[in-house]
């Protein structure tokens, strides 16, 4: 029984990290209606840059803001060179553009820092926490717990950013109705830059955590694919959806891997989340937190 | 316009105690009325009176929570759009629902999709039945294009057409299905005087040439009084009047609820 909980908790913890990535998607989709497929690339880019700067003997407390700056700069460039010319294009077009962007960023990242796999040490060991295992016999990884903590923290920060700050409110307004937002004089383009910047920051954090766990490598870009089922589950526009969705996906994925995997030859975590999300959607098309849509004509 | 020829027959459509609500919002409450064969039946009422919802119930876009719909003798709890179409109910929409990227011709052709039986394989190979059907249906469609005098825009994508013409194309698409019952949702909204006159002429021609039964929603009282045989008046989802234009015009409740405030 305790094993079950161990798996479950492990799942939930990594689920939070999915949420983290998913959050990046949601931010951008809410504010600019863009399904940003480059989010994974951003994670990769952020992590790589951070490590790269570290290799240049930059101390952690300097490398972090530096990378953040780079991410914001990137966001600015993207808004200027990609989003602005593509404004009012159909969503599918913007989606395609972000795929192109993903290629570009991946190329850029490896160009700047090289493609070889690097480790990233945040001073957290991926080892069970002694006293928990003593008490319950469950192995809960320090790292996972810490990571979850960080993620939770970030989510909290974002929540505040959204609800308390002026920018945040403006952002919500934009998300609700572009035209109206424009009408009341909210500078759409700045908002986009900011959002992409924030998404970049989120990507950075996600990048650090994932990087520290699996090493900083091209594979990080696939983290995005992990986040997609979370999105369909939670909805493209819902922050809580992203979080809860992440937890559900994380947990169920681990459980499935452990309890179903062996019978079908393993490796099912690649598709299981999707199928799960899909089945869920068939039952409830409006997603976790979306309300029922009445299609008026 | 001599409409003397057509014989108004027995009811082909009867609605009994229809009630419809979205979530908590009541759109229609216990509405009953009938439509007789070959007649032009108007539904009027202030905005938000539930007129469009009424049409959507009749051809199955919405499913009412209570009430029955009997069409050509068969009584149903509710319609479904496909049955409606295949039993000869066609309609136009308040804000034009054409296929924007397709040409006028193709739009009208879609109106005859139910008449085409060829499988997609036959169509892929463009053999036998597929080809034959395509040409037979094209001829029928051309007749309608002729009828509504839109030959000159036959191959134009509807997206590029002015509003008035789009309305006409939508009517053409509905007619292409050779409906027995035609539902028109504000066919003259936003038209100038000439366009309105044309549209009136077309509606009456349809009703007369093809004997099509017509239910229309219209705001322009003048038009309604001119072309309709009987009028239903809705207000806040309730029926407050029903009868010939003159009767309705005289009806106190109607005047208060609608004519009074609207004009």
């Amino acid at each position, binding site marked *: 029984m305790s094993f079950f909980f161990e798996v479950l908790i492990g799942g939930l913890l990594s689920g939070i990290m999915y949420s983290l990535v998913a959050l990046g998607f949601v931010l951008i989709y809410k504010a600019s209606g863009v*399904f940003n497929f480059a989010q994974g690339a951003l994670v990769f880019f952020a992590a790589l840059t951070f490590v790269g700067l570290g290799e240049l003997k930059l101390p952690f407390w300097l490398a972090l803001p530096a990378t953040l700056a780079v991410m914001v700069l990137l966001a600015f460039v993207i808004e200027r060179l*990609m989003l602005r010319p593509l404004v009012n*294009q*159909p*969503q599918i*077009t913007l*989606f*395609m*553009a972000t*795929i*192109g*962007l*993903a*290629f*570009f*960023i*991946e*190329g*850029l990242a*490896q*160009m700047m820092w090289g*493609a070889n796999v690097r480790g990233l040490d945040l001073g957290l060991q991926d080892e069970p926490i002694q006293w928990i295992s003593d008490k319950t016999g469950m192995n809960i990884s320090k790292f996972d717990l810490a990571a979850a903590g960080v993620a939770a923290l970030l989510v909290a920060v974002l929540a505040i950013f959204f609800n308390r700050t002026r920018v945040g409110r403006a952002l919500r307004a934009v998300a609700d109705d572009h035209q109206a937002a424009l009408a009341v004089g909210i500078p759409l383009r700045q908002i986009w830059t900011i959002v992409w910047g924030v998404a970049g920051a989120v990507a950075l954090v996600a990048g650090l955590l994932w990087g520290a766990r699996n090493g900083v490598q091209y594979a990080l870009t696939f983290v995005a*694919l992990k986040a*997609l089922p979370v*999105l*369909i589950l939670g909805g*493209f526009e819902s922050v809580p959806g992203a979080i809860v969705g992440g937890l559900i996906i994380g947990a169920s994925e681990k459980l499935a891997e452990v309890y179903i995997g062996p019978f*079908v*030859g393993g*490796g099912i975590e*690649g*598709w299981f989340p999707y*199928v799960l*999300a899909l089945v869920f959607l*068939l039952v409830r098309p409006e997603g976790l937190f979306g309300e029922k849509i009445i299609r008026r004509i | 316009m001599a409409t003397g020829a057509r014989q108004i027959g027995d009811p082909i459509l009867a609605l009994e105690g229809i009630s419809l609500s979205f979530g908590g919002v009541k759109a229609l409450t216990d509405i009953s009325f009938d439509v007789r064969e070959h007649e032009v039946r108007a539904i009027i009422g202030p905005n938000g009176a539930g007129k469009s919802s009424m049409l959507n119930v009749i051809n199955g*876009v919405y499913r009412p929570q209570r009430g029955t719909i009997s069409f050509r003798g068969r009584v149903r709890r509710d319609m479904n*759009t*496909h049955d*409606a*179409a295949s039993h000869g109910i*066609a309609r136009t929409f308040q804000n034009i*629902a*054409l*296929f924007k*990227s*397709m040409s006028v011709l*193709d739009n009208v052709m*879609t*109106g005859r*999709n139910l008449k085409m039986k060829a499988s*997609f394989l036959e*169509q892929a*190979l*463009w053999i036998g039945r597929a080809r034959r*059907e*395509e*040409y037979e249906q*094209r001829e029928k469609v051309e007749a309608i294009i002729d009828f509504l005098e839109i030959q000159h825009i036959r191959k134009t994508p509807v997206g590029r057409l002015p509003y008035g013409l789009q309305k006409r194309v939508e009517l053409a*698409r509905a007619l292409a*299905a050779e409906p027995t019952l035609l539902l028109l949702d504000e066919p003259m909204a936003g038209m100038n005087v000439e366009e309105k006159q044309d549209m009136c002429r077309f509606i009456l021609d349809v009703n007369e040439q093809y004997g099509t039964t017509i239910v229309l929603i219209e705001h322009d009282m003048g038009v309604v009084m001119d072309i309709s045989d009987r009028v239903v008046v809705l207000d806040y989802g309730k029926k407050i009047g029903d009868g010939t234009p003159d009767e309705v015009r005289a009806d106190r409740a109607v005047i208060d609820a609608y004519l009074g405030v609207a004009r």
Partner: protein
Amino acid sequence: MIYREAGQFKASYAADSAIFPIRQDRVGIAVILAFVFVVVPLTATPYLFSAILIPFLILSLAALGLNILTGYAGQVSLGTAAFMAVGAFASYNFMLRVPGMPILLAFVGGGVMAALVGILFGLPSLRIRGFYLAVATLAAQFFILWVLTKVGWITNYSSSGVITAQQIVILGYRFDAPAAKYLLVLSIASIMALAAKNMARGNVGRSWMAVRDMDVAAEVIGIRLMRAKLLAFAVSSFYCGVAGALYAYAYLGTVEPEAYSLDLSFRILFMVIVGGVGTVLGSFLGSAFITLVPVLLSVTVRFLDASLNLGIAESTISNLELMVFGGLIIFFLIVEPHGLARLWQIAKEKLRLWPFPH
């Protein structure tokens, strides 16, 4: 300018709804066909065949498949490659397990299998739309590849999961010369393109476009959404399946499921977008663009590298290519979001009205 339409009147609906109603177009297409069927086979080099022409044609076919689904029926899919894989492995097994199976029939069989799977994964489209559907199709991508790798029977228990496509033999003739393969692929592609065009101009095509443009209205005039959408998935997947089979038999030769990765799906989606959504021509133009650009890129980069001996590292070059490719896509979407086909369409209009402005 080259067009002289005066006097080309239509006396029958057949003539009026022909695929190429204008004589000049008929002439043009005839010339092109003559060129690709006669001149190219006689002149092109083996490298050109097997490295460029054959993949280009095969991917055009796949793009055409996706275009039917996305362009005509308006359903976005990211699982194209998976359906190709189904086609490939199904054909392989037909050849493997049905004695005396004619290869063309095996291809068709592969297509049909893909179609069935396509319908299965098309079911969600009845409930969900837009990006939700797009992401949902990723399920197909991952699940199918997973099945292909996990179920040994499919790969005939080859330890590496790699299969070797059987020889292409039709009526005793072995298609192993590149030129021969090219002609085979070309013929299949042409025929299927024609079929696609026929569907597009027929009732099926109109129903698809109707569903795409305004599904409620489509339903109201009696088009069955489910029928239309699932048919679109089926036909689309059939095209992809056949393309996938050819990809294995006429291009790669030895295949593992990974050959049909998400990357391939995206490349094909690019082809559709860059080429022009909802056009048969676009599928081919897009495919040409996406297949040629990387080749040209690496050629030019390497050329520059060599001529100016900059001594660029191999990795750098590939990264550079990646960047330029990505950049090009974005640039393209900015300058002509409607794709290459639209460019041609505009040019044609101008030529028809010349000297008057368009």
